[in-house]
């Protein structure tokens, strides 16, 4: 009976190993398909999206123009210098050259600083959008930014926001002169509420910098920015216009009769229009929004109102969230455009990963053979149990949807080493104490007390947003849980049956 039990357990382990390492093949549509789920590989082991961003052409052109103008000025200055050259000494020329070099160095430093700012803004945007894994590199010479992103449902959205811009500006409605620019905006927050009539109002609160606030106070003396004020001015204007039309018609009919009276009416109209303010608009990108409230350095903008349609309300909310996100993640001092957007397979092939796995398994097999030689039957049974452990572990990793990154592979190695240590300790203690129950208790105590810090590390890693580290944490966590349960259920039973 004891032998039958051992044989049954061994057969179950063999079956599990066959499923884990070979798979279950079922015929579907004239081909054999493996029904066991495949491993989910991370960006560095499978594929990724690589986006190259370059400084926008317009920007470069304008910079070139500026440079040309600068060089033109320099030329003219040089010309003047030439005329004066006869008078000046060589020493002064040298100091001028040093100054010029210093100037160009400063401009270079500023350009590099701007590129760095854009890179930081992109990083902030990706973090704010919840991108869990990315690599950004910057070429400081031409400003090219290379972004590597994992391929998933959100990749295209991330790519859109890499270069998206939403400048918040307050402009003169007539002349389109920028009164408050994007640099004077500190941050933006969005909110939504329901008013008395039951309609949803989505608002964006734009906070200005100190400089912006001072400028706003100055602007408000001459400009109307609040929607209520603008409405008042516009209705006044339309009233004036209608009065003007009426007066013109009166003029045409009663020209000969009341010439003096008409002139007096015109004068009064002119007097009334004199004190009206100019109109300023708050523009985000190319859309003009209504300003509903101004309080200190905060301007409340109404993004939209809707009574019942939830889709429209959601659209307004996402519009407001987008403005806030683009504003709060930092400025883009240089305009960029997408130069290339490519799907890139990893240079680490599946074949290479397979070879690595085979090498690791071969080493484990050698260690298990050593166990079998040292601990004889107990060693053989523990080794069979170990193979079952690896099989179940590989199935768990696949079915818990854990992503395998390079860090994840490292976690698998750590878990295999930990289980080897556990098996060796258990065999050693069983040999010494000769009481399985006592040996098992001691092994659990020894191993698990020592790995509490590793459990802490695993849990913290599980909670991180970053894919590579969470992969490490998840694989470690499942591995530790499996070591605890599997050895208690399978290894202990096998050794117990052998003892009997």
């Amino acid at each position, binding site marked *: 009976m004891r032998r039958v039990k051992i044989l049954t357990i061994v057969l179950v382990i063999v079956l599990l190993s066959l499923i884990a390492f070979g798979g279950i093949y079922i015929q579907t549509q004239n081909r054999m398909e493996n029904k066991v789920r495949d491993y989910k590989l991370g960006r560095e082991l499978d594929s990724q999206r690589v986006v190259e961003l370059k400084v926008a052409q317009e920007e470069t052109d304008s910079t070139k123009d500026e440079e040309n103008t600068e060089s033109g000025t320099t030329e003219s200055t040089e010309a003047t210098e030439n005329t004066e050259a006869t008078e000046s000494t060589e020493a002064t020329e040298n100091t001028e050259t040093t100054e010029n070099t210093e100037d160009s160095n400063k401009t270079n430093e500023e350009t590099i600083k701007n590129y760095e700012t854009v890179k930081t803004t992109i990083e902030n945007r990706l973090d704010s959008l919840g991108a869990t894994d990315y690599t950004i590199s910057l070429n400081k010479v031409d400003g*090219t930014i290379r972004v590597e992103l994992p391929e998933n449902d959100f990749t295209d959205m991330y790519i859109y926001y890499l270069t998206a811009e939403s400048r918040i500006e307050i402009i003169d409605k007539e002349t389109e002169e920028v009164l408050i620019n994007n640099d004077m905006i500190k941050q933006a927050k969005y909110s939504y509420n329901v008013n008395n009539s039951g309609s949803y109002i989505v608002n964006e609160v734009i906070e200005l910098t100190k400089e912006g606030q001072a400028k706003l106070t100055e602007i408000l003396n001459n400009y109307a920015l609040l929607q209520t004020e603008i409405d008042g001015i516009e209705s006044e204007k339309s009233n004036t216009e209608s009065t003007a039309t009426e007066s013109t018609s009166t003029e045409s009919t009663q020209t000969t009769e009341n010439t003096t009276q008409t002139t007096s009416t015109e004068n009064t109209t002119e007097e009334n229009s004199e004190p009206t303010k100019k109109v300023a608009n708050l523009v985000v990108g190319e859309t003009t929004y209504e300003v509903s409230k101004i309080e200190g350095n905060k301007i409340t903008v109404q993004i939209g109102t809707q009574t019942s349609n939830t889709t429209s309300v959601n659209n307004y909310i996402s519009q407001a969230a987008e403005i806030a996100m683009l504003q709060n993640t930092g400025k883009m001092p240089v305009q960029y455009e997408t130069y290339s957007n490519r799907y890139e397979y*990893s240079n680490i092939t599946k074949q290479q990963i397979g070879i690595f796995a085979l090498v690791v398994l071969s080493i484990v097999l050698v260690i298990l053979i050593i166990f079998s030689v040292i601990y004889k039957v107990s060693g053989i049974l523990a080794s069979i149990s170990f193979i079952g452990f690896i099989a179940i572990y590989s199935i768990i990793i696949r079915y818990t949807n854990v992503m395998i990154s390079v*860090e994840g592979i*490292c976690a698998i190695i750590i878990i295999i080493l930990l289980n080897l240590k556990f098996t060796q300790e258990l065999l050693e203690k069983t040999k010494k104490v000769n009481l399985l129950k006592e040996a098992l208790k001691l092994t659990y105590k020894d191993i698990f007390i020592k790995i509490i810090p*590793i459990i802490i*590390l695993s849990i*913290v890693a599980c909670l991180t947003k970053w894919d590579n580290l969470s992969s490490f944490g998840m694989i470690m966590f499942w591995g530790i849980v499996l070591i605890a349960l599997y050895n208690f259920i399978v290894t202990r039973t096998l050794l117990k049956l052998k003892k009997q």
Partner: protein
Amino acid sequence: MKKRDIIILAIMMIIIVIGIILACTIGFNKQLRYSDSQKIDIYVGEEVDLNKIKEIANEVIGNNNMVQIIEIYGDMVTIRAKSISEEQKNTIVNKIKESYEFEQTAENTNIENVPATRIRDILKKYVLPLSVSGLIILIYMLIRYHKKGLLPVMLNTILIPIIIELVLLSVLVITRIPIGIYTPSLILLVFVFATIFVINKIEKLPEIKA
């Protein structure tokens, strides 16, 4: 402290000092994936055999190169190396043309620069999780082994992992082993074993009598 421990510590310190000097002067050696490099993209128009292209790249540029299949249908290939000359570019394109039929010529293939990734950008995401877990581990150790004295427990828990990690980084910089995608895993692996080593060491410490 035993004489053997002092010798080991002294050797470690020497390695760390040399490592710091080298890191400050010549810096770390980076894997091609993370260093300034050049690339050429070739549109083959049919499914590419990566090994074949890799062989050509090895033959023309040398072994320090990266060959990757790009685009979803696997019909385009990118070859990346520290630097690619015009001559090398022409040879690669023409050699690939011998195996595949495609329109792209050596003349209309551009050599493009690929910017380097900074080591701090690769490692910065590890700093916060490792610091948080380090802090929680420290608190756990102080509570669990309070009978062994707070100062020795604290010093061992903080210093040993830091010294071992510094030795690892110094070895990497001295031996010029390139920093690459496996480096963070190596750091994690060393952190795990350093922690186990700390526990073994602290457990051997005698308890302080009240």
